[in-house]
């Protein structure tokens, strides 16, 4: 017999190959797999040949065409920043939200809007108050959302929290604030045959975060601990180029500016194979507005996203301005750059342009990117 259990495929094909993004899609549903300190732990051995863990994992192999079709009704194109219904810059109107947020506080403001408008009853986000150990948090109150404001740059298994939340009977409509890999996982889950088994119908809103890479929990944590007391850290930030620094803001010692090159070694290998910077599989994606301090870039991708923005503006939670053409082009270039770099890294890992690892199911779209090289 040569049958491979679902968990064995995840272990051999994803975890041990360093393809795991620690998104948490395979966890929170059963006792067998648990996220812990940046690693998916195979706690016990499940005997099932297939299950949600493998079906949901975007790194076992994802059919982007199928996922994109289910979500947007159109096929996936290699493009740059994905489906765009609207794009602009924005910032939170509430000074409290603004000060808690990483840049313009728009993500928190949108979460608050979704809750206040009753679009969702719960928001799953990443609690990154401990900058070395962020974790997925389930919130249903405005105040709790504030605890999730700000970035940490360390990978968190936020989808694990979603998978737990979605099983709770009192939660009916959920929003998730997530990184591109997590949003791809959620989209993959929603379009999966096993979606119903996981109550994916409860997922009403996905708010994405722009992302270039995430750091590995353990090695970065150890590195940072040598420099500062992690509990003293209030904010971490990577200022826009050409700063090339990783800034750590502490409660007691102010700002500590580390060369970005010191931090790069702690980037998860899995992130170097990621082709998504702007969280393309979401209702709305938010990131820094480069060169416009205190503002976010917002890409609206779905009707649901438009409705959320509309409500947030009407409630006075956010302000909107036009994104200058120059900035949009720069964003597109950067995004496309990430895709090409990722494919190059994949080909280097496999030693072949024909083996694209988790992207092997979408050869046409990837071929276009490869040919540009």
């Amino acid at each position, binding site marked *: 017999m040569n049958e491979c259990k679902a968990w064995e495929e995840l272990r051999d094909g994803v975890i041990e190959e360093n393809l795991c993004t620690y998104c948490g899609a395979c966890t929170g*549903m*059963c*006792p*067998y797999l*648990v996220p*812990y*300190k940046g*690693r998916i*732990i*195979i*706690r*016990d*051995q*499940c*005997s*099932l040949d*297939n*299950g*949600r*863990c493998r079906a949901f994992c975007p790194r076992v192999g994802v059919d982007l065409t199928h996922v994109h079709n289910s979500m947007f009704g159109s096929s996936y194109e290699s493009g740059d920043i994905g489906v765009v219904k609207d794009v602009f810059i924005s910032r939170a109107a509430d000074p409290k939200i603004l000060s808690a947020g990483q840049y313009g506080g728009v993500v928190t403001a949108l979460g608050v809007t979704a809750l206040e408008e009753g679009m969702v009853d719960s928001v799953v986000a990443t609690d990154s108050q401990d900058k070395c150990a962020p974790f997925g948090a389930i919130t249903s109150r405005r105040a709790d959302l504030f605890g999730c404001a700000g970035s940490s740059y360390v990978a968190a298994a936020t989808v694990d929290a979603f998978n737990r939340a979605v099983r709770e009977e009192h939660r009916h409509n959920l929003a998730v604030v997530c990184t591109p890999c997590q949003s791809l996982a959620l989209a993959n889950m929603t379009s999966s045959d*096993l979606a119903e*088994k996981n109550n994916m119908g409860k997922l009403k809103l996905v708010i994405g975060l722009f992302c270039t890479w995430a750091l590995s929990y353990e090695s970065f944590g150890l590195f940072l601990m040598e420099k500062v007391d992690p509990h003293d850290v209030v904010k971490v930030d990577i200022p826009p180029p050409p700063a090339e620094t990783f800034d750590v803001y502490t409660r007691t010692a102010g700002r500590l500016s580390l060369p970005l090159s010191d931090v790069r070694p702690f980037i998860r290998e899995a992130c170097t194979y990621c082709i998504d910077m702007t969280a393309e599989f979401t209702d709305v994606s938010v990131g820094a507005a480069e060169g416009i301090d205190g503002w976010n870039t917002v890409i609206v991708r779905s009707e649901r996203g438009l409705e959320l923005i509309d409500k947030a503006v009407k409630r006075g939670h956010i302000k909107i301005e036009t994104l200058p053409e120059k900035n949009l082009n720069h964003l597109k270039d950067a995004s496309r750059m990430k895709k090409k770099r990722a494919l190059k890294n994949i080909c280097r890992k496999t030693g072949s342009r024909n083996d694209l690892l988790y992207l092997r199911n979408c050869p046409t779209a990837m071929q276009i990117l490869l040919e540009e090289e």
Partner: protein
Amino acid sequence: MGIDMDKPGSTQLLMGNEAIARGALEAGIGVAAAYPGTPSSEVIGTLAEVARKYGLYVEWSINEKVALEVAAAASLSGVRAITAMKQNGLNVAFDFLANVALTGTNKGLVLMVGDDPGGLSSTNEQDSRHIARILDLPLLEPATFQEAKDMTKWAFQLSEEISNVCILRSVTRISHGRGKVILGDLPSMEKWAYFDTSKSYAGIAGLATRYHKSIHENQGSIADLYGSTPFNSYSGPERPDLLVVTCGSGWLYATEAVKTLSLEQRVGVLKIGTTWPLPTQFLQQHLAGIDRILVVEEVDPFLETNLKEFVVDRMAGHSYRFFGKASGHIPPYGEINVDSAIDALNNIMSIGYRPREEAYEQKCREAAQHVPPRGLQFCAGCPHRATYWAIKDALRMAGGNGVVAGDIGCYTMGIQATGFSQVKTVHAMGSGMGLASGLGKLEQFHFEQPVLAMCGDSTFFHAAIPALLNAVHNEADVVLVIVDNGGTAMTGFQPHPGVDRDAGGEIRPEINIEKLCESLGIAVTVVDPYDIEATRNAFLEVLENRGKARVVMSRRECALIRAGKRLDPIARVRVDGSKCYGDNCGCNRYCTRIFRCPGLIWDRETLTAKIDEAVCSGCGVCVSICPQSAIVGETA
């Protein structure tokens, strides 16, 4: 029925170990001391029950060496004493035994050793008899329950005649079987202990050879003392075609085999009760005129090898063909039985005996295929299962492929699925901690694996303390997990120094393990394994805090002690079948397939888990295991 019945001549049904205890009582012992070990535990356990009535001092000692020393102290002071131990225990006591054998004893000192052929309850199936030969000590092997009593009594006399320890070797089937025993008189003498300081029992450098010489020369006189003892006997024709020489339970098997094969007219059975030194005259008398010998005995070819030596030395001019373990006629390992003896006789005598028809054998083989394989298991509600669960989770989460060194006790079963196969080494008492201490010092050779040692509360006192001190002093990076369930559970809940009672139920000061550890500067984390999550988190924290020896005290009373006290279960546990995910994704029978408490069963009809109410002890641990909250624990 008790061993203390004062009815000489009456017949009682006694367990072999009870018969040995009765023999000691009839011999007028004053002191009995032991560390429990299957199959020897009931000897001292039984004496403890009658200690007050007969003015005995009975103790469960900290280990077998101390037990023998305590018993020897009585002997040196003029009071008869007995100690009992299993074969592994004799190794622990061996160091003292090898020296007291040289210096000698005063009043009768009997060492009963219960061997465990087949290792039914042991880590090995060592044959203890070799030790009698190594040390030139008399060795007796009872073959019946009556002999178990009578030989014990006689052993005290022998011990006094030669001023040395007499070894009584039993095996599981003699110790734990039951049979008729005719009781003898119980002496009612008052005992006075006094150490005669005009004598010396000091084994020091320079005297060893003199001692050795005298004990060696004593061998002949021991053999003479055996004289015409009824424990050595012959039954069979005057000139048998084959002589079966046997001892202990082997005699039972050989006798039954001869009868079964109707060989009474052709085969004689020579029963040896005094297996070391060999009874010279008795053997010379019965080996003359014989040419074929089959030796039937448990475990090693001890009697067989010594007989071969004997015939070379003492039976010049005779030639013998030997059958037994060396020839492959009797299995040289594992427990033997009547079939072993029948097979041997069948083979040697070419009888062509078939115990069963081939068709029947075939049916047996087919039926056996339908018997589900069952490993050893922790009882329902056993706190060890919960501790191992937490260790398993913590080690997987911490990563680094942690090593768990096991030890002797119920928790040894951590090597199997019931303990989630966490334990990787099991050797002697306290060896887990010793191995861990060594593993924890391999850092300079790039060893990075976390190291855990397991030991029970009783094992901690027995032999783990020196190894722990070693680890503390040498700063070994280890975690000692003490699974404290409130007694020596595996052998029958004998008390130990951590318990506030002694063997006779008297109140004694208990030694607090945490305080002992803390006095060594060890950080001790106390957890309740029934709180699985807190226990796992405690392990995670302790595992992270590397560099020194740490202790986790996982404390929960054995579920059997709790049941014995007839306490209410902690929770009334039931399964809400409507919530149970069963075999589906999200559970895959987590409770019955992975957690595997025997109180949980898989209902093939409803395809859900359910509680076996007859087995469930109500610990409530499975409630926190269930991913669906389908297992409900209502506070009783």
